[in-house]
């Protein structure tokens, strides 16, 4: 930092301590810089200053720069520590550098105020020599319509750019447009005077709200060389060398504040309008026609045109249910050489169809406002048809939390209603079905059946025996009548006895008959019967021993007697 040693306005020292505030000039133009210095004598530390009160009327361009110096005067050493700033006034008129609070070695000290006389810029250096201009292509626009602002530097003097403070405008979406870097100077003539012109900055502004919007000014700081006749130097020569030959003055350039009126849209805004303003073209395509189920397809959506491309969104796309959709990646390519903000937005959707078949990807519609004809337009892409062939293997892993069975369900609808009234079950009347009761009862019946049946059968068997025994006599008598010979008589008697008393043994003889029937028929009758049987046997082995006709008749009378005792 270069310190000039001219008109030093020394302010009196602070009470007890030695602190001074000083400026290098107090008469200056509004675009000129000056140096402000706070110096502390015999201090151990650097002073600490709060510059806040000063910033209302002045802007700090650079600083603080620190400096420490020692002096020996008459063998006595004095030291001084100083802070130096470069400032520029914000406006013209009689300004005051206010009293500042300085903290020095733990003490609070105050500087004296310094009056400054700031004139309008023309009075000190001609304005025409060097100025900054903001060119606006229109001062009335719709919301979202592009306003191009070009910041140009006009100069007739040797200068170098030190620093540019770019504007940050409130109420606009801004997109920087390309300008040559470093700035290229061209020759131009304004009302007969020749200037070098360079475009410093170009920006496309898109208003985001209606009403009066203000462009904040751009500030540029530059070093201006006071013209000398001896030397002509290039613009971007090293300022260090310039110092030896030219005097350099630091200047701050500012554009005039501009106002822009932002109009609302005319009536007739479509429902699906998302804020697109300009002229656009829309395209959609897939990367391949042959698609297999479970294989990824890329679906491109391209929006090309001029307008507020980054400020609106595409309407939401409704993809068919049976495909998986990953969130899109988007990219933007800006046409570099156009003043109108132009480019191509591209969205890439990865789709994975889960089912074979024909699928239509939906048309995309975009409504936009064209500020040229002041009307709304709607563009749309064609719908894309996909023919999905079945997957090679169905073993593809399923995702999205569905199991394979559920994936198969995705495209389906519910089965339709039952339409005929069913057999109603009255509320709370859910009984046990009849079949259950029936089979329990039947089973119980079946368990009981054998017992009852066997009893019945037993009874039947006994009654059958009785009936047989009842008939026994009749049959025996018939046999005896028909076959009165001895063999048949004994057989008939034995058969009768068997049937009548149900004797178990087949081979009966007089002895066994006696033992079986004892107690059943009276003994004298039994003796008679036994005698008959013995006679029969005797007659069989020695015929004529008793008389055959006699035997059959005897048997008949005896059997009749015997039968009555059953």
């Amino acid at each position, binding site marked *: 930092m270069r310190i000039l040693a001219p008109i030093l306005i020394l302010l009196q020292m602070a009470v007890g301590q030695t602190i001074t505030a000083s400026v290098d000039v107090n008469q200056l133009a509004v675009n000129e810089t000056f140096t402000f210095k706070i110096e502390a004598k015999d201090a151990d530390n650097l002073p600490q200053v709060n510059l806040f009160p000063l910033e209302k009327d002045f802007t700090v361009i650079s600083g603080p720069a620190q400096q420490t110096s020692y002096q020996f005067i008459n063998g006595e050493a004095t030291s001084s520590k100083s802070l130096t700033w470069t400032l520029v006034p914000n406006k013209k008129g009689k300004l005051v550098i206010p009293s500042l609070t300085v903290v020095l070695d733990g003490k609070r000290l105050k500087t004296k105020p310094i009056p400054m006389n700031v004139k309008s810029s023309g009075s000190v250096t001609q304005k025409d020599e060097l100025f900054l201009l903001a060119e606006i292509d229109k001062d009335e626009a719709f919301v979202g319509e592009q306003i191009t602002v070009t910041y140009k530097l006009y100069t007739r003097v040797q200068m170098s750019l030190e620093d540019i403070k770019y504007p940050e405008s409130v109420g606009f979406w801004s997109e920087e447009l390309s300008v040559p870097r470093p700035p290229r100077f061209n020759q131009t003539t304004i009302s007969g005077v020749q200037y070098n012109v360079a475009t410093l900055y170009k920006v496309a502004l898109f208003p985001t709200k209606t009403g009066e919007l203000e462009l904040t000014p751009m500030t540029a700081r530059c070093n201006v060389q006071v013209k000398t006749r001896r030397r002509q130097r290039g613009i971007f020569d090293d300022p260090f060398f310039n110092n030896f030959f030219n005097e350099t003055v630091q200047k701050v350039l500012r554009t005039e504040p501009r106002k822009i009126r932002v109009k609302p849209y005319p009536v007739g805004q479509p429902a699906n309008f998302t804020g697109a303003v300009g002229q656009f073209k829309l395209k959609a395509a897939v990367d391949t026609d042959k698609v297999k189920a479970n294989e990824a397809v890329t679906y491109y959506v391209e929006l090309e045109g001029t307008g507020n491309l980054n400020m609106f969104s595409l309407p939401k796309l409704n993809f068919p249910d049976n495909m998986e959709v990953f969130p899109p990646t988007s990219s933007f390519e800006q046409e570099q050489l156009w003043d109108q903000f132009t480019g191509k937005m591209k969205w890439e959707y990865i789709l994975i169809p889960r089912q074979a078949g024909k699928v239509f990807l939906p048309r995309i519609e975009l409504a936009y406002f064209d500020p040229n004809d002041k009307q709304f337009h709607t563009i749309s892409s064609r719908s894309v048809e996909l023919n999905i062939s079945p997957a090679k293997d169905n073993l593809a892993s399923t995702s999205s*939390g*569905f199991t394979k*069975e*559920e994936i198969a*369900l*995705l495209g*389906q*609808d*519910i*089965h*339709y*209603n*039952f*339409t005929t*009234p*069913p*057999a*109603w*079950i*009255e*509320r709370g009347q*859910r009984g*046990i*079905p009849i*079949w*259950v009761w029936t*089979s*329990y009862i*039947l*089973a*119980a*019946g*079946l*368990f009981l*059946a*054998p017992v009852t*049946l*066997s009893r019945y059968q037993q009874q039947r068997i006994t009654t059958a025996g009785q009936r047989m025994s009842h008939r026994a006599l009749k049959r025996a008598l018939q046999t005896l009548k028909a076959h009165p010979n001895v063999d048949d008589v004994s057989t008939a008697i034995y058969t009768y006895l068997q049937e009548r008393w149900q004797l178990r043994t087949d081979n009966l003889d007089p002895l066994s008959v006696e033992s079986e029937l004892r107690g059943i028929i009276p003994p004298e009758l039994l003796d008679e019967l036994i005698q008959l049987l013995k006679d029969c046997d005797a007659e069989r082995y020695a015929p004529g021993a008793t008389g055959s006709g006699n035997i059959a008749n005897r048997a008949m009378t005896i059997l009749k007697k015997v039968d009555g005792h059953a």
Partner: protein
Amino acid sequence: MRMFSLFLLTVNLFAVNADSMFVQGNWYFEDEKFIQAARTYERLLGSAEHADLYYNLGNAYYRMGEVGHAVWAYEKGLQFEPRNDDIKHNLELVNTRVQDRITMPDGFALLYWYRAFKNSQTVNDLLIWGSTFLLLVGLIYALGQFRFLGEKAVSRLQAIFVILTLVFHGICLDKYWDVSGTKEGVIISTKENVYSVPAVRDEMIVFKVHEGLKAEITQVQDNWVEIILLDGKKGWVPVNTIRPLS
């Protein structure tokens, strides 16, 4: 005699009424007036029940987008006809819309099969099985007694059918305990906070459930029910957010 005819008349009237309401509901459904259809079916549910009715009700709720009520209706329908393929299909379909997804660990195969079988039968189905086997035991016993069957065949068949009878009655008892012992419900509010205590307190939110989720109801207290999810998570929800399945 007059009493008897009056009784007949009421029975008939009930059936006729139910039929006409059912048909009315179906008309609404066909006209895509699903809200009216669901209302009609619900009114009919007050007096009569049938799997078909629950199924149609579920369809109406499905079309209305009421996932929770649809799941409830289908589940009710399955209680009556657990092997009805239409109901099963629609329940599966609506379950894909349920946000909460809890899958039971598979367990070992035998238990899995047993559960699957048990779920595919109603108590009455199992009773029919059991009683039929009992009838067969009786039949074989009787046939053996009358010597239509050899002793060996009888003892073998008898052993098989006695075991089957006992097994099916056992399963039936198990199922009956399942049905009468546990109470289940379906969440019907779109999204519900589950609290660790029966009170609305933000710091007590344990987890969140969404409509259509089936949960077991373990306790009821004033206007709150305690639910337990398949995976063992437990908490309280307001009573009007869950529709019981019993």
